[in-house]
């Protein structure tokens, strides 16, 4: 069969997603590498101090890495139980008519722009947390975690719900036939059967939270120190890039260091995406 021009280029266009991925990685490498030339990769990754504008500057991203990890951990502690709860509710408990009303609302959470979440955190949640905890400031890692958790929740819910509702019906019926209650059926039959899907949902939820920028930029407090407590200001990697790229002179060590942080972030999220694929295959 003869193919026309468009049909010939179709495979090239379809592989563009991979091309962009490689392009992004290439750019992050070439723009980030100069940092590793002037300070060793180990000192970059495990250095305790991030003082990019001091003289001499120090570029240790451990505080930023730990900031990202802490905020993400907090987010998944919020998102996983709530998201799983919503997923169980939608597929096992809610009547169809209530389900059809509830589901769009949960999906709506995913449609709210991250800067609006950040704004809400700034004007509402941070003052609240400051008052409740008698803290010097409400802009903390924990505050960011709560909002990120709500933001990651629709991801967790939609994937976990798919997994739960694809558990075959006869498993549930067998469980009921043995005299199990609804709760026992959910916790001992349905959830174990859906566990790889639930695990995938958690991985993707983590990926969503660790890459989120505007919320942590506005709410996490911004101090680049090793986090000592959940409700203290931190500065995750994404926030560092967003906050400092505007001030870093092009081509300076600081500029390249921010790209190197981008590379760390990219590799982390790529790893999470591939891990999710791998779990899905199993």
């Amino acid at each position, binding site marked *: 069969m003869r193919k026309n021009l468009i049909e010939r280029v179709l495979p090239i266009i379809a592989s563009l997603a991979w091309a962009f991925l490689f392009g992004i990685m290439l750019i992050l490498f070439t723009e980030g590498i100069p940092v590793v030339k002037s300070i060793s990769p180990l000192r970059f990754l495990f250095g305790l101090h991030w003082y990019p504008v001091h003289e001499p500057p120090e570029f240790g991203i451990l505080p930023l890495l730990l900031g990202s990890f802490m905020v993400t951990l907090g987010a998944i502690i919020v998102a996983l139980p709530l998201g799983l709860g919503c997923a169980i509710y939608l597929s096992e408990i809610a009547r169809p008519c209530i389900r059809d009303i509830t589901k769009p609302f949960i999906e709506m959470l995913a449609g709210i722009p991250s800067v609006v979440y950040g704004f809400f955190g700034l004007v509402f949640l941070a003052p609240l947390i400051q008052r409740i905890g008698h803290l010097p400031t409400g802009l903390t890692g924990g505050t960011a975690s709560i909002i990120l958790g709500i933001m990651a929740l629709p991801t967790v819910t939609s994937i976990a719900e798919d997994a739960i509702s694809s558990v075959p019906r006869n498993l549930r019926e067998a469980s009921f036939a043995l005299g199990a209650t*609804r709760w026992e059926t959910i916790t001992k039959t349905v959830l174990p059967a859906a566990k790889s899907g639930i695990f995938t949902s958690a991985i993707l939820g983590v990926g969503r939270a660790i890459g989120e920028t505007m919320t942590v930029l506005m709410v996490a407090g911004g101090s680049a120190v090793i986090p000592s407590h959940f409700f203290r200001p931190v500065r995750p990697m994404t926030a560092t890039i967003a906050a400092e790229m505007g001030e870093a002179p092009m081509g300076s060590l600081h500029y390249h260091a921010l790209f190197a942080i981008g590379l760390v972030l990219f590799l982390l999220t790529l790893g999470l995406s591939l891990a999710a694929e791998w779990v899905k295959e199993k």
Partner: protein
Amino acid sequence: MRRKKELLGILAIRISVLFVLVSLFAVLIFIGLNGLKVLNIGFLFEPPKEGMTKGGILPAIVGSLGLSVGSICFALPLGVLSAIYLAEYAKGKRLIRVIKMGINALAGVPSVVFGLFGLAVFVKFFGFGVSILSGSLTLGILILPTIIRASEEAVLAVPQDFREASFALGASKWQTVRRVVLPTALPGILTGTILGIGRAAGETAPIMFTAATFYQRGLPHSIFDEVMALPYHIYALMTEGTSPQYQVPIAYGTALVLLLLVLGINLVAIIMRTRARRAKKW
């Protein structure tokens, strides 16, 4: 005991759903009520005045629309052609899986990393500068996975009979795709497009270093101008400037406009999807 567990378990799930819905409404109502105080015709159709302390947000609305439309012009053709290749031409499960893995991985890349890529490639390397063009291209790559997924689903939903009928009339593969499959899949593709527009309009981090500016006199004249954008405007109002007592109310208004815009766009997509499903005769 078992009965008690059942009641408590289901109650916990209902409470988690309730908590999620309350969070959603808290965000919507809090921003809605405070935003309505400043929202009026002048706010929508006037430029900012007196160092961001008075006036409206017209340039930011125009800028956001420009960036969204620009990103769609770039992502829609690429996304639809990728989807056609995946659904109609690609042979072998393995190949399709690999391509989809790339698309999923691209979807998982943090938005701020797209910003770095756009800065290095479009702003610097191609020399487009901080401009609508650079921002649109960056956002276009970001929404590409959304467009591909929605279009692929729409193309796959076209019944096989349609294609066979077309082949029976002597049409070639490409003629069939162009004259039969694409028109039938159009409503689904449009839904995906609208979702992509909504996503692009709400993103902040990718445009921070590629397109957005804090203040602009009048409207942009060409695609090489930098622009104001709604999400960046909210961020800038909260973090820059010296008179928060005037800036915060404007930020509320801007957040409300952005929310209405993005949620409105999503609503249109949902309505279109439901209508298209109902209108189907097959």
